């Protein structure tokens, strides 16, 4: 039998969130981020959020806007602009509490939460400053002797990254939350929705379940409706991050975004035009910016 209809809007997703929640955001760096939901959070009064992500502009925006007070990340980067300028400023001013994990350790933590385990053992982090500057990350000793040395090996116990809510962006979904990713990397969205109590999936297009797989194969059906609370149809919802093969990253817009970290005035101007507006106005302003750039090129 099909699942219930879970379609909703970005603002309805945000109405389900509470200040102080721990929110996981899918994608990777500046790739396939659920930006239309992030934009709805930016318009809200939510505060004190803990954001958990392989971070990109999602993290930078939530730091700059003041909605996030804590960031747990595998890194925060815009890909073509390696250092996320707003996250960087937040770290240097001390306005947020940060946990920066080894990239693989982050996956172990996410997987532990999805499997309802308190931690998963990993070598990643041993000997590094990760457990020294974040001393809540500790080690566990193997109960089994090493077959070669007989030693009971000490490993990092990557703590479970349990999420109140996960927000991910997929290419296709049906109304009940079965979702399909296209492109070449699922990132960790499928694990993230299971690491969370509740998960919301935005997607480029909502299709009848029987048509979900068109143009791809079973290995891309990675998210089940069982793990999804709500579905948002959001064509272009990952803008300005990359969402291949549907669309690439809007590099010109990303540069404009990065420039908004230059001064309070630059941020105020960016915020007025691209943050404190509804999605329709945002799109109109993005088109205006692109048209102005084209005019400038002539």
């Amino acid at each position, binding site marked *: 039998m099909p699942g219930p209809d879970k379609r909703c809007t970005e603002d309805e997703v945000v109405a389900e969130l509470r200040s102080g929640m721990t929110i996981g955001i899918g994608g*990777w760096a500046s790739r396939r981020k659920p930006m239309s939901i992030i934009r709805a959070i930016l318009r809200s009064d939510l505060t004190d959020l803990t954001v958990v992500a392989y971070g990109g502009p999602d993290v930078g925006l939530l730091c700059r806007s003041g909605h996030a007070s804590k960031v747990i*990340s*595998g*890194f*925060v*980067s815009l890909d073509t602009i*390696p*250092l996320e300028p707003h*996250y*960087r400023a937040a*770290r*240097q*001013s*001390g306005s947020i509490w940060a946990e*920066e*994990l*080894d*990239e*693989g*350790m982050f*996956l172990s933590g996410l997987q532990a939460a999805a499997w309802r385990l308190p931690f998963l053992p*990993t*070598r*990643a*982090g*041993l*000997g*590094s*400053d*990760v457990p*020294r*500057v974040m001393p809540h990350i500790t080690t566990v000793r193997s109960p089994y002797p*090493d077959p*070669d*040395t007989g*030693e009971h*090996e*000490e490993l990092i116990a990557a703590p479970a990254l349990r999420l109140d809510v996960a927000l991910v962006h997929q290419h296709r979904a049906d109304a009940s939350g079965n979702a399909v990713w296209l492109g*070449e*990397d*699922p*990132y*960790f969205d499928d694990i993230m929705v299971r690491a969370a109590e509740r998960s919301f999936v935005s997607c480029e297009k909502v299709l009848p379940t029987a048509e979900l797989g068109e143009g791809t194969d079973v290995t891309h059906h990675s998210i089940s409706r069982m793990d999804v609370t709500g579905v948002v149809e959001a064509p272009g919802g990952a803008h300005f991050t990359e969402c291949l093969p549907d669309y*690439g990253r809007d590099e010109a817009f990303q540069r404009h975004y990065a420039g908004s970290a230059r001064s309070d005035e630059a941020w105020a101007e960016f915020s007025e035009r691209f943050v404190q507006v509804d999605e329709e106005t945002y799109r109109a302003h993005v088109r205006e910016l692109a048209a102005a750039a084209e005019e400038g090129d002539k």
Partner: protein
Amino acid sequence: MSDPRRADVCAVAIAEAFRGDGESLCNPIGNLPLIGGRLAAATFEPHLALTDGFYTLIDNVPAVGLSEDERQAQRVIGRWNPYREMFGLLWHGRRHVMMGATQVDRFGNQNIAAIGDWHQPRSQLLGFRGAPGNTINHTTSYWVPNHSPKVFVEAVDVVCGIGYDRAAELGPTSSRFHEIRRVVSNLGVFDFVAAGSDGGDAVPTMRLASVHPGVSVDQVVEATGFELQVPEHVPTSRGPEGAEVEELERIDPGGLRFREVPDE
């Protein structure tokens, strides 16, 4: 005969870091490391696996600096390798990565995370990225295009990639997969050996393995913020030879390497 161009020497020195790796993933990060790694795969280390820079392991040696369309058209895919599979591969260990280093110390500890106190850094950099996991799981080398005492420091501000002192503290079982193979800079090549003639149990520290043509040993020592091991006879790094000359041109036809390391 005039000296070979510095960027070409660096590319060859980087390629040499992967010599002997056989059938494993050669995973250099950054333009010159990518050029050097691909040079090794195209010449003396033909069974190396490479990545397309994103989500696949490839069995051919394309040029660097390709557009997205060219990258997809030119690759010969051996295996799908999305990020989750890359973690699987590196935890399995059949990989040699060459990363950058904002700071590196005599034991090979590397910092790319932050300058100053990590808790509120003076300058936030990349974060730990994969450096802790890389260095504890498989061979790692570093590329430094701007050799100076600000990079080659007495002690790094944040240990991301772990050096030989940290590995030694962990003991032989935990550190069994740790190896910092080589540091290549714009001035020379460096490896890690235990000081003293007998070696013994001493912790390996950085040694000057060769200077690039036109660079003096004194110049390297002066640009290094800690005491390097300097052997009595320091060889000179070689330039491209034989098929390497043509392959370098094919792999980097646009001369990206000369932008990263200009001629002296």
